[in-house]
């Protein structure tokens, strides 16, 4: 008995089953795909939220204003000191003159402000450092770190733009989206399991005579089972491949839309799916296949007794 021949024949019978029950096959495949669409939509929203979050975090900076007495050398040494920390992404030196210029620029139209500057006579601004960190969580650390005896007395004011509220909002939004998405995906997966189960049951019912005859003329259990298992695996593969194609098309055509809403972030969203695409779709195929094979095996045990 040739294994190769048996496999080829099992494959032939599988395709016959799929084609002879075209609508059933079509509906099963559609449900598989709907499940994956939900999962991928959740994934997509997550990636976008993550990108937006990161781009906001990148813009958050803390500014350390030094007293006018603090010399440029002292401030530059503080700059070097801060750069030594791993959490720090960048430290920009802003001289007192720059600070004055940009202040004048911002308030150029305001007569009163300009008049009071005149009154003071000298530059009221000191040198300053603008620190950005890799994560917003690191600000506390940086603000503490600068409080050394060496610099503490020269520091006039520390200030960071209040993005925290925005970040928290995005965070809670994206975790809510994630939760709702996974609930939806789980629901679809559950429906998919039921439909697969029913599909296999109907298929076994439709083929019960054929199966009975196969067994009577001496087909072994595996030869009877194989077409049903193969069918389930094929639906999973078909769904994963079609989903990958749809995702590719979606990303391709949504590019302009993404640029409009998220600026530069869109590039990273695309890059994420380009980098992780194979892993994502292999995983999705794997999970679907395991799910549908288990369902098929269960349906066969219940309704086929093989």
């Amino acid at each position: 008995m040739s294994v190769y021949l048996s496999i080829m024949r099992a494959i032939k019978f599988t395709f016959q089953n799929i084609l002879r029950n075209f609508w059933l096959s079509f509906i099963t495949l559609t449900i598989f795909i709907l499940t994956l669409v939900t999962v991928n939509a959740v994934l997509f929203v997550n990636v976008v939220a993550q990108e937006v979050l990161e781009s906001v975090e990148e813009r958050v900076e803390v500014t350390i204003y030094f007293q006018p007495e603090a010399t440029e050398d002292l401030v530059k040494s503080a700059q070097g000191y801060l750069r030594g920390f791993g959490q720090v992404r960048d430290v920009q030196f802003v001289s007192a003159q720059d600070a004055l210029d940009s202040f004048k620029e911002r308030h150029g139209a305001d007569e009163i402000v300009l008049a009071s500057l005149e009154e003071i006579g000298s530059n009221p601004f000191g040198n300053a450092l603008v620190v950005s960190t890799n994560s917003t969580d690191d600000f506390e650390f940086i603000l503490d770190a600068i409080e050394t005896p060496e610099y503490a007395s020269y520091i006039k004011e520390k200030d960071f733009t209040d993005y925290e509220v925005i970040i928290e909002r995005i965070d809670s939004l994206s975790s809510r989206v994630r939760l709702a998405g996974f609930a939806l995906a789980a629901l679809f997966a559950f429906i998919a399991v039921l439909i697969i189960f029913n599909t296999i049951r109907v298929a076994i019912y439709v083929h019960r005579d054929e199966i009975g005859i196969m067994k009577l003329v001496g087909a072994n259990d595996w030869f009877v089972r194989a077409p049903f298992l193969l069918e389930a695996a094929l639906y999973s593969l078909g769904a994963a491949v079609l989903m990958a194609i749809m995702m590719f098309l979606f990303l391709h055509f949504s590019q302009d839309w993404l640029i409009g809403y998220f600026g530069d972030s869109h590039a990273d969203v695309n890059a994420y799916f380009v980098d992780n695409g194979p892993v994502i779709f292999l995983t999705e195929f794997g999970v679907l296949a395991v799910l549908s094979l288990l369902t098929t095996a269960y349906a066969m045990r219940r309704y086929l007794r093989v």
Partner: protein
Amino acid sequence: MIRLTNVSKHYGPDTRALEHVSLNIKPGEFVSIVGQSGSGKTTLAKLLFAEEMATKGKIVVGDWDISKIARSQVPTLRRQIGVVFQDFKLLQRKTVYENVAFALQVAGEKSKRIRDIVPQVLKIVGLHDKTHRYPRQLSGGEQQRVSIARSLVHRPKILVADEPTGNLDTIHAHEIIQLLKKINEYGTTVVLVTHDRDIVNSLKKRVISLAEGRVVSDIQHGKYVLS
């Protein structure tokens, strides 16, 4: 060839299809099993190809004790025993040729061997000129001959036929019995389950009568003895 020793089959506490059946069928014999409806004939046939398992007793087919046959061994047994039924059990969407080839395909037989064997068995049953018809395009007798052809592809030593003429008129029934006799003459042991008094009487072969699951008579060159 077939030896049953004290075989009982109970489907439930109240359905005792067979009780203490012992019989011995020698190679090359042609045995008719007769009895009223519900007497256990089909059950006896099913025990022979392991469609049902005996509740008690020992069944030996060839040299093989199949009383406690493993599930995985059943296909091997089925390939050594041809089976034919009243309702033909043909696949409606396959042609005559494909129906017969199917039994070889599921057994993993090579395509070349299938192309050799199928025309041979179709010639034996006289359907070599109707190989591409579908079952619905054949008479009942012809359909039964397809099913007999299919049962022959593994060159079985035993052929079990459960009321093969039950759905046929007298002429077609006679043709089928002639075919079974021919197969028996080639050396295959034939176990024929039947209701048909005329057939049993004309065969003049061994007749085993069942009543309420027990063997009530076993006569060489017998006649149909029940009312």
